[in-house]
């Protein structure tokens, strides 16, 4: 206790600080270990229960496929990634203003929410073929399905964030007679950003799934197409390889969103 050191932040980060200090390398140890454990378990299951490969291929088979078909899989991953990102951005662009509208008045909320819910309740797998009928075989119906899948979590989370602003701060805005837009821009929105990001993190994982579902229908590329195409010929290893890439894509996009969050709201980590 003789050197100058930073005090713990006011937030409860007692346990976390310890971890941080051990060093950068150890940050990546737990996920790697966890992943290794999961793969080991998978392997064990296939070996111990002698699971036949058409039900669950062994990690080795899948790894082999991943290596052999690397180029093919990579190209299709990029296609899915692109659709995911476009749809996700579209969902943000539409969802955030919609959340705004919904929180602007109880009346609007009562009118819009049930409709949104109905719309959201339609299973997206059933919608995908319709979108192809309406919009053709291009990228657009895929992007649109991604949008459909992930705009709802964004609306709900953002609306929840916008309508749970701390009472003092809302009152401050009122006392300054801020207009609606100023209240939104200076108070409600910054206060809702942490919650918005909860929605975004959820939405990005759904977005990936949405892209894949869309590619089940009327696509000739993308990871979803790889899954159906390989499923039709019972190439289970290829299907699993595609699903693993999907998982990786999902994880990467999730942590990217989390990184953006940390960049935008460093203060949210404190008070």
């Amino acid at each position, binding site marked *: 206790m003789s050197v100058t050191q930073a005090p713990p932040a*006011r937030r409860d980060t007692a346990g976390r600080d310890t971890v941080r200090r051990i060093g950068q390398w150890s940050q990546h140890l737990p996920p790697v270990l966890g992943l290794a454990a999961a793969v080991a378990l998978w392997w064990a299951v296939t070996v111990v229960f002698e699971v036949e490969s058409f039900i669950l291929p062994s990690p080795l088979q899948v790894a082999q496929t991943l290596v052999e078909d690397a180029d093919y899989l990579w190209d299709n991953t990029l296609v899915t990634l692109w659709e995911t990102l476009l749809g996700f951005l579209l969902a943000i662009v539409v969802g955030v203003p919609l959340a705004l509208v919904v929180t602007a008045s109880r009346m609007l909320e009562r009118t819009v929410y049930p409709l949104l819910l109905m719309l959201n309740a339609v299973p997206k797998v059933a919608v995908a073929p319709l979108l192809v009928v309406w919009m053709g075989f291009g990228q657009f119906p895929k992007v649109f399905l991604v949008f459909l899948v992930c705009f709802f979590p964004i609306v709900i989370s953002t609306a929840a964030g916008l309508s749970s602003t701390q009472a*003092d*701060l809302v*009152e*401050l805005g*009122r*006392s*300054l*007679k*801020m207009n609606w837009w*100023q209240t939104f821009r*200076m*108070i409600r929105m*910054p*206060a809702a950003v942490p919650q918005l990001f909860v929605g975004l993190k959820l939405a990005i994982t759904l977005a990936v799934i949405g892209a894949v579902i869309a590619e089940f229908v009327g696509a000739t590329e993308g990871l979803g197409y790889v899954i159906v195409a390989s499923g039709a010929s019972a190439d289970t290893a290829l299907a699993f390889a595609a699903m693993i890439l999907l998982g990786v894509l999902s994880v990467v996009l999730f942590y990217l969103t989390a990184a953006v969050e940390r960049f935008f*709201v460093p*203060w*949210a980590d*404190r*008070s």
Partner: protein
Amino acid sequence: MIGIRNVSQVYRTRAGDVEALREVSLDVADGEFVAIVGRSGCGKSSLLRLVAGLQTATSGEITVAGTPIRGPRQDIGFMFQRPALLPWRSVIDNVMLPLEVFKVDRRVARTRAHELLDLVGLNGFDKRLPHELSGGMQQRVSLCRALIQQPRVLLMDEPFSALDALTRADLTVELQRLQMKHASTVLFVTHSVDEAVLLADRVVVLSPRPGRLRQIVEVDVARPRSLGHDGHSAALGELRARLHDLLMTTEEVTR
């Protein structure tokens, strides 16, 4: 400037009603400085919130500059009992908030904000976030934010409660100076009799809950006043003692 007529406030809650204010009437002249004292929970904050248009009285009417209050107005500034700083804005950006709302030029706003921060002894802290400040420092930021507006009517709810004597004395002097300069009308809630007699033209004493007007004490001492030397002057001392007695006795004394 401010007209409060037969104002009552009843809060309805799940655990029963609370009568916060009963039939309070008060007139505050333009440029007058009125201090409000009373026991904790007697409705001082409620009264200020009513004048600010943040809530509607259960009965009675309030006018400011001749027009009845229907909601918040930009010529009324309100310093809340709690700092209410925006946690994501730096100190300087918090102080500049009202001017941003009123669309004042940013450079002008920044200069004024720096002046005020210097005044309250927070130079060097302008880039910090609120959670990095002590309680008293937060309160001073909140004070700066209220002062930067230069409103016609300034409502202040225990603005110096978290400050030490020296800072308090300095700010008392500065507040008098600013009020005289801008001729603003001030309603000032405080628990300090010293502060009340130093700052106010009149001190309004409210009775315990439900808050009723108990007495209004005129402070007829020349300005600027300070605690330093003339702070112990006979006139102020007497007023202080009188207010002290009023606050320390519970029986009713109606004016």
